[in-house]
């Protein structure tokens, strides 16, 4: 690492040339410092030079170099499905073994990975159980259906300590299906990370893999659809293939061999790929999903059943269907509208929202979806996302009907569904609607990732509220119970969300205080019609007083309690009692994974305070000037309605709002959004609010026109479309044929892919040949991916919509089962690592054979502080003159005086000695002055230049006017020119009796006075 001025210590070594300025500096300082004397001058010059050098070093970016031989080993453990449970266990045992014998100064970190990476343990030195501080076996990963080794390496690099050497030990089979681990390894190498690999080999035995099921994207009714089945086997075996057909929510087994017993088709597989064809008759016009499964005769011929299945689907053109979702409670209301639509010839599939599993695949069956007074909590966030994607990206239609469980009253406010509707569910002004008030007592810290879930739930609850509602959160912060979010009207939700995200709640001692705070705040919300409290806790805090609970009941404040992972029965009892007494609800989350229900629970609870947006009043719908085709032939005289949900119109020109209430609130509004259409009707409940509408002759006509407007526009079968799966990507190929020259070129496609979780991404489609277009999209997870493509049309082709998709039947982890040791070895080679085996011991894994880590720490701040200090020193040297002789004398005198204080006899003796010294000094000076100059002129000589220089800098110079005579004379005291008295002979002095010093001094004074008198 070289010496102190090694160039490696500097960020900008070129600045070091500035040190040469010191020569100029010295030359300039020669004159300015010449008056300080040799020692001070040199000291000042040295100080100035040091300041200059320190400044130059700081400018050059000097660093301190720290060397460290300690080692941090980061284990990166593969948790994906391609690693068998047995092999994972071996890997964990290996880590446990080496962690037990690891050196005490080294550190160990553990990361597990599959499609995502999880940090199990940050770098830590060994503890009482060895180097592992976390429970084993490790929890299952978040995305076991994928392997993203590259991400794992990046996270490991981020966890590495820059103060130690770092070694990553990968325990994996090397099968990656997301990312590029080699790229990540090269980046790790650049960060001085070494990668050792320990290849894991899972023994799966004989295997049959169902590679693909190919079905045409489009078919006609009553056509025989050809299905192509491709299987791969590593040995010859026999079995049968079963094919299931799913229509809507039901799946049925197709009899492939009507002439023989059983429904499957017998097949014989040879080693390698095997292809079979079957034809399936199509009996209904909707989306058909096929699932093919291989069942081996000999169970030992196939180890993993997960990869024995494949899926595909085909769209069959025909009359379109509408999905009607309502709740059981509103069955009579729903029947009115469903029957009316059916009378108009619209195919309606009526389902109970509580039990219907809405997913992306089911969207293909329907041209529109009607949500009739359905609350938001019946749909997961993923389903709501899928619903929005269905409209925006697949061109579907959504009609939302009002009711006491709909719009904001149904908890839809702030949801992604609100974003696609033509009205906002929030209410801009009070409109005589009282506010709601919600207080949360947050004690979520006692569950895994408690702070995160606390934040998620609070945000979910907040979103559900109106901007006119009150909201507050009480928690235990650094200063005890605090309002993490003070109770207030949440007009600025973004600001409140920021506050929520800063929350850090801690262990709460009791419930009484925070509940009392929340109670008082709720009571103070005078204009709130609904007041509600939610407590999330493990029930551990001391229970609230009965008096407080009674006060809450008296004030009509309800309280819902959510138990999170309670420790015992007593805690549950405390939580239950609070909700029972106050009329709230009780939820218990005690199993791992239950915490995911929290946002939905809070959404549901928060909407309790949203009831005021429902307005039960009779009104006559008002028809506004419009261009809406829905109102064609309906007229202006509509029957009265008995209630509606208050919403706010979007102030954009795209929204058509042909009907409003007498107060001007939206009643019927619709617009185009993305590729699809949505409509909001804020009333409904035909047996309650709309009794007169149910008997109105134009009722069915109006709703038929409304639903037909919403329905998805027809798709075109003028294209040959092929979708395939290639690794973690889907590929779509479109062939467009014109009528005359055979190809339709230069078309533009806009494509969207909707993933199984409802999220959507753009698909870029480019022309790759005459009439041929291709695009790719990422397949991250298992399930059905829907594709919606809008073509711009061409010379002979109208603009049309193409819908297709692909299904991933099983994880790619089950497709490639051979370990990729070559990749692992390459990772080790790239980073100068090693290939380990399970037999390796702690000494090997923690071998200190890496070059010592060199950490650079910038020290510019220290250099600047030091420079400042020396600069002040320089000023002091130049400004303050210190006479070393006088200083020494002073110090001696001080020490002597200190010593004298502790010895009175000595003190008196020293006083006398001092007086003697003074006397002798006066005498000697008089003698000298008499000899040197006073006797000639009788005038004191002026002070010499050297004397002036020895004084302070601020003293006047040699040419300045000075008083004529010394200070004593000027004040009328004794004059230095007084001639000295002749000294007595030594013999006389010896003979006379000894006199005291005081007596001698008195005599001297008398003599001096006498002489003065004589002179006068």
């Amino acid at each position: 690492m070289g010496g102190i001025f090694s160039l490696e210590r500097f960020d900008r070594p070129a600045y070091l040339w500035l040190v040469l300025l010191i020569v100029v500096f010295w030359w300039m300082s020669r004159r300015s410092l010449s008056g300080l004397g040799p020692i001070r001058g040199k000291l000042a010059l040295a100080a100035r030079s040091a300041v200059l050098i320190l400044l130059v070093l700081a400018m050059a970016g000097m660093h301190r170099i720290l060397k460290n031989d300690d080692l941090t080993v980061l284990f990166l453990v593969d948790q994906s499905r391609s690693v068998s449970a047995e092999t994972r266990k071996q890997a964990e045992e290996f880590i446990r073994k080496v962690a037990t014998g690891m050196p005490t100064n080294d550190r160990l970190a553990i990361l597990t990975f599959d499609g995502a990476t999880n940090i199990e343990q940050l770098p830590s030195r060994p503890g009482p159980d060895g180097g592992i501080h976390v429970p084993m076996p490790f929890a299952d990963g978040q995305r076991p259906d994928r392997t993203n080794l590259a991400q794992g390496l990046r996270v490991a690099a981020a966890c590495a300590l820059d103060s130690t050497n770092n070694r990553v030990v990968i325990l994996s089979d090397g099968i990656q299906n997301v990312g590029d681990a080699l790229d990540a390894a090269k980046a790790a190498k650049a960060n001085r990370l070494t990668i050792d690999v320990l290849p894991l080999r899972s023994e799966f035995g004989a295997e049959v893999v169902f590679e693909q099921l190919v079905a045409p994207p489009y078919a006609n009714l009553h056509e025989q659809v050809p299905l192509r089945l491709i299987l791969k086997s590593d040995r010859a075996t026999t079995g049968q293939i079963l094919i299931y057909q799913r229509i809507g929510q039901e799946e049925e087994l197709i009899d492939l061999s009507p002439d023989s017993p059983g429904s499957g088709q017998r097949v014989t597989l040879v080693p390698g790929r095997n292809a079979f064809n079957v034809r399936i008759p199509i009996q209904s016009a909707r989306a058909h999903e096929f699932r093919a499964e291989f069942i081996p005769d000999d169970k030992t011929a196939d180890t993993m059943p997960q990869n024995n299945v494949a899926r595909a689907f085909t769209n069959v053109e025909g009359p379109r269907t509408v999905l009607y979702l309502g709740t059981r409670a509103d069955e009579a209301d729903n029947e009115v509208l469903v029957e009316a639509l059916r009378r108009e010839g619209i195919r309606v599939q009526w389902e109970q929202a509580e039990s219907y599993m809405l997913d992306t695949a089911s969207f293909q069956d329907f041209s529109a979806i009607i949500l009739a007074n359905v609350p938001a909590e019946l749909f997961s966030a993923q389903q709501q996302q899928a619903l929005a994607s269905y409209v925006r990206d697949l061109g579907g239609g959504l009609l939302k009907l009002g009711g006491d469980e709909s719009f904001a009253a149904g908890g839809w406010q702030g949801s992604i569904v609100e974003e696609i509707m033509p009205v906002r569910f929030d209410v801009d002004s009070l409109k005589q609607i009282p506010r709601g008030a919600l207080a949360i007592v947050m004690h979520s810290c006692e569950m895994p990732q408690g702070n995160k879930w606390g934040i998620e739930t609070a945000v979910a609850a907040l979103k559900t509220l109106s901007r006119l509602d009150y909201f507050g959160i009480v928690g235990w912060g650094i200063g005890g119970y605090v309002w993490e979010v003070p109770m207030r009207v949440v007009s600025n939700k973004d600001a409140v969300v920021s506050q929520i995200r800063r929350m850090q709640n801690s262990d709460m001692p009791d419930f009484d205080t925070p509940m009392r705070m929340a109670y008082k705040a709720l009571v103070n919300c005078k204009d709130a019609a609904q007041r509600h409290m939610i407590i999330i806790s493990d029930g551990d805090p001391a229970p609230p007083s009965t008096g407080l609970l009674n006060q809450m009941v008296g004030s009509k404040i309800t309280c819902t309690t959510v138990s999170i992972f309670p420790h015992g029965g007593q805690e549950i009892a405390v939580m239950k009692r609070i909700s029972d007494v106050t009329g709230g609800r009780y939820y218990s989350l005690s199993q791992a994974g239950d915490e995911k229900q929290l946002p939905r629970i809070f959404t549901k609870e928060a909407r309790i305070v949203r009831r005021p947006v429902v307005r039960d009043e009779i009104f006559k719908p008002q028809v506004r000037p419009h261009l809406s085709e829905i109102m064609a032939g309906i007229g202006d005289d509509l029957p009265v309605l008995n209630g509606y949900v208050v919403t706010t119109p979007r102030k954009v020109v795209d929204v058509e709002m042909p009907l409003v209430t007498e107060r001007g609130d939206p009643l019927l509004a619709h617009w185009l959004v993305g590729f699809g259409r949505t409509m909001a009707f804020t009333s409904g409940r035909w047996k309650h609010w709309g009794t007169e509408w149910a008997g109105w002759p134009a009722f069915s006509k109006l709703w038929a026109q409304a639903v037909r407007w919403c329905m998805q526009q027809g798709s075109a079968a003028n294209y040959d479309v092929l979708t395939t799966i290639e690794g973690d990507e889907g590929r779509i190929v479109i062939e467009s044929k014109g009528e005359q020259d055979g190809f339709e070129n230069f078309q533009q496609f806009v494509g969207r892919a909707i993933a199984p979780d409802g999220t959507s991404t753009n698909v870029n489609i480019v022309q790759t040949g005459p009439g041929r277009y291709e695009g790719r999209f990422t397949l991250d997870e298992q399930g059905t991916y829907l594709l919606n493509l809008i073509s711009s049309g061409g010379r002979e082709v109208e603009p049309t919509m193409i819908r297709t998709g692909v299904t991933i039947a099983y994880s790619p982890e089950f497709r490639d089962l051979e370990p990729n040791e070559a990749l692992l070895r390459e990772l080790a080679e790239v980073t100068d690592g090693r290939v380990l085996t399970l037999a390796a011991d702690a000494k090997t894994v923690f071998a200190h054979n890496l070059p010592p880590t060199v950490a650079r720490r910038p020290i510019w701040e220290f250099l600047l502080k030091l420079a400042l200090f020396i600069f002040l020193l320089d000023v002091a040297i130049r400004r303050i003159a210190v006479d070393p002789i006088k200083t020494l004398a002073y110090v001696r005198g001080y020490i002597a005086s200190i010593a004298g204080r502790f010895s009175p006899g000595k003190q008196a003796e020293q006083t006398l000695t001092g007086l003697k010294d003074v006397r002798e000094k006066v005498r000697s000076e008089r003698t000298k002055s008499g000899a040197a100059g006073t006797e000639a002129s009788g005038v004191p000589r002026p002070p010499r230049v050297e004397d002036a220089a020895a004084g302070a800098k601020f003293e006047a110079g040699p040419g300045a006017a000075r008083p004529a005579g010394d200070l004593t004379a000027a004040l009328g005291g004794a004059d230095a020119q007084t001639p000295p008295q002749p000294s007595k002979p030594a013999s006389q002095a010896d003979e006379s009796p000894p006199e005291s010093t005081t007596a001698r001094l008195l005599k001297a004074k008398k003599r001096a006075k006498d002489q003065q008198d004589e002179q006068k």
Partner: protein
Amino acid sequence: MRNVFGGPGLSPGQFSYPRALTVSPVDGCVYIVDKTARIQRFSADGNYEHQWRMPEYKNGKPTSLAVDGQNRIWVADTHYARVMAFDRDGQELFRFGRAGEGPGEFIFPCAVAIDAKGYVYVGEYGGNDRISIFTPDGKYVRSFADRESGDAWVERPVGMAFDADGQLWVTDSCHHRICCFRDDGTLKDSFGRAGSGNGEFNYPYGLAIEKTGTILIADRGNNRIVRMDRSGRFVSSWGTAGRAVGQMAQPWGVACALRGNIYCLDSWNNRVQVIHW
């Protein structure tokens, strides 16, 4: 300020939300338990010496420690309804207690203290909310300060310590006061009320008694250590809320060293601040 030791982490000498500390009257060693269920031993100077982990900790972690005259470490194993005793190296000596609401049973034992005769006093919360006395070999003697005790009822007694006269001092956390009990279990006196001023507390947790007889209280909610005399008079306080040295975030415990230093368990900052005050 004499010393600061600890820091966040899982390594030896580091903490993850430490919840209790105590000082051995025999050798002056400091014992600290944190939310990883580790009990760590430090020298009086704060140097890490040894650690062990509680035998079970999935349900929850201990919240109180005490060391007796035989250098045995007593642990209130809060979420396992028991009290355990270890030697200074973590070897279990014995345990007693079972879950329940009857005499000698526990719901959540949250404090343990040993008197001059070796009797074990256990404070509880979560339903029982009382102090129970056990013989040195774990036999139940009696309980006091329960819900039926009127003004003597303590709710969440997290800190307990005996003074030179054999009186038991208790932090009655949820009532924001300090109680002094005679050796027959009757309430002699109580001091403090909710608040942040002098003579006020905001969930007092840890408690220790100095050689001079003054009482030290870890005033958790007010982020300070309070010193009061035995007549309940406020003497002084140390610490403010914050992360810097000299500041504290939720101090759960306080203990007196043999040499007169004071150990402040600065829980949310994962450290111990040693002061001479």
